[in-house]
């Protein structure tokens, strides 16, 4: 190959390689910044629980919603084939809800429409997710992981009601 052409090729390659590095690096920086600035977190390590002994293990012995501080709630939810317990939760607008959830049997999904609540329920593991519901309305909760022939019937509702004046 001609020497000049060879240099040109290196030039083209470099002209492509530099932005190819810069673009993903820029995206990564943006990602990390937003993760910490906005504080959108993923489920992490919380606790383990014996799926065969949920009925005897707090907090899963008493599924449901409780207010831990004014405006701060904990919702203990169990996923099982093919329903959530409880399958309806009602909170006032502005409430911050921490979902503490697990599965009694197979892997289930836990997704609340239009929010950042998206987690897997894995037998043996406790999933913790926190979200502040600002807009009143009805939010669909669905299981988004295949969990058997009745999977498409596994859903629930979160009702966020405007506080009565």
């Amino acid at each position, binding site marked *: *190959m001609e020497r000049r052409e*060879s240099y040109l*090729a290196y030039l*083209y*390659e470099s002209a*492509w*390689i530099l932005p*190819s*590095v810069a673009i*993903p*690096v820029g*995206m*990564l920086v943006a*990602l*990390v910044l937003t*993760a910490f600035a906005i504080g*959108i*977190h*993923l*489920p*992490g*390590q919380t606790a*383990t*629980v*014996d*799926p*065969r002994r949920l009925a005897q293990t707090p907090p899963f012995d008493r599924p449901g919603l409780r207010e831990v501080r004014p405006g701060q709630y904990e919702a203990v939810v169990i996923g099982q*084939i093919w329903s959530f317990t409880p399958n309806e939760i009602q909170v006032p607008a502005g409430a911050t809800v921490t979902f503490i959830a697990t599965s009694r*049997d*197979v*892997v289930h*999904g836990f*997704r609340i*429409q*239009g929010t*950042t609540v*998206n*987690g*897997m329920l*894995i*037998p*043996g*593991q*406790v*999933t*913790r997710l926190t979200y502040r519901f600002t807009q009143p309305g009805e939010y*669909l909760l*669905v*299981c*988004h*992981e*295949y*969990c*058997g*022939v*009745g*999977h*498409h*019937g596994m*859903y629930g509702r979160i009702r966020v009601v405007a506080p009565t004046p």
Partner: protein
Amino acid sequence: MTAPENRLVRGYLIVALLALAVGGLFGPLQALNWAGLDLYGLIPGLRSYYQGLSLHGTLLVLVWTTFFIGGFLLFVTRQSLGQPLPRPGLTWATFWLMVVGLVLAALPLLSNDATVLFTFYAPLKASPLFYLGLGLIVVGTWLLTLTLGLAYRRWRAAHPGEPYPLPAFMALVTMLMWTLASLGIAFEVVFLLLPWSVGLTGGVDALLTRTLFWFTGHPIVYFWLLPAYLSWYTLVPRHAGGSLFSEPMARLSFLLFLTTSIPVGVHHQFTDPGISEGPKLLHTFFTFVVFFPSLLTAFNVAASLESAARRRGEQGWLGWLWRQRWGDPVLTAQLLAMILFIFGGIGGLVNASLNVNLLVHNTAWIVGHFHLTVGSAVTLTFMGVTYWLLPHLLGRQLWSRGLALVQAVLWFVGMAVFAYALHNLGLLDTPRRTMLGAAPYRLAEWQPWLVLVGIGGVILFLSGLLYFVLVVLTALAGERQPVPAPAFAETIHGPADTPRAFDRLAPWLVVSVVLIVVGYGPVFWQVLSQGTPPAAGLRVW
């Protein structure tokens, strides 16, 4: 190629095509179910949507891909080295082992004893035959690696000091990457799922099995993609009438896939409990790193296509983009595959992004994404490859070039409609892997997109049907005449410009292992140190 070698490649191709035909059959049923039209009654003996979905996923992503790749990489290695494949006994034993594995896995799938989808997440408990069959297929792929390794050693001994030919190099790198990657699924199947499914153990750590699955489950997409890249790098420039722009950059791209493909799997588990955000962020980082060799590929392949158009006298800045040989179905199928893959790649970055992933995880978005990648970049490329490989192997002309063109364009259009609708549904929180036609919670805002999914599915079905009509008519009625295999593309920036390091494997394998330890060390430490209580197996279908 010798006659037995020809038969071997044909064997792989036949199994791959059968898997595509059977697995593909369920695609339109699923799409139409989402659109509100339930045609499952048409398939006698099928027990549920989810049995169909298990067949669709397993046969397409595990069988169609693996068998096509097996035959294609053996063929490429044979042609590129110009020496017979080593140990015919071993290559045939490998093929039959994989076929036995496929039969063992297919039996419970067909009898509704393995309705666990292709991810077979424990504690869903399938028949032991299913796990055994999958395990045998994986072992078969290791023997393929061994075959390519033996070919490498023999060629090196006969050609001291020469660089290993690019196509064979890419084939070997693909198999080496896969072999490392497959250790996760092999460990999961052999040590956890098989003993548990036959009743030797009472329960299984559900988080550990998922983590092992995704150790293999993400790099497996590069195992599908790299043979398509191999075609784009070493054959497409020739089909287009040009040369490969840069061999060193092509090699670098494959070596980067070898080293960085594996420590990325946790981006499928961002929403899993039991793994903290630190290791998850690390896997975001590594997935972005793997984006880089794909960008290198985009540049290199585009520059090669540009060289083809310039050779035909194209002068303008961008005119080369459309001044291509669109009349050739082999080329057109692969160019269309590339176009769809651009969107697949961009969507992949969204999926890999730590917290943006929350918007799309396990929604229809993901289904749209992997139909653009494995369902388009890979499958449409393999369809294009079929249009020269099959005539070459059979010594018969392609039955109709015109119909082959129509087939490729229909696949492109169908997939564009299908994937666009699915991505939109995903952003509206439509769950994936769900028989939506029967879901009581279907939302009105999903409806128009669901109909579009159905339309896309029907177009894809027609294209698939056309593909099989062409395959069968070529085999039975194509004009008898020797069809030469396309020569591999020449290079503009070629072997002489290739640094020696880009012709070696061992140092890159060491880097790969080190990066696996860095990326997966903390993950397995967390998963294993928690002692997740075991879950009992269940059959819930």
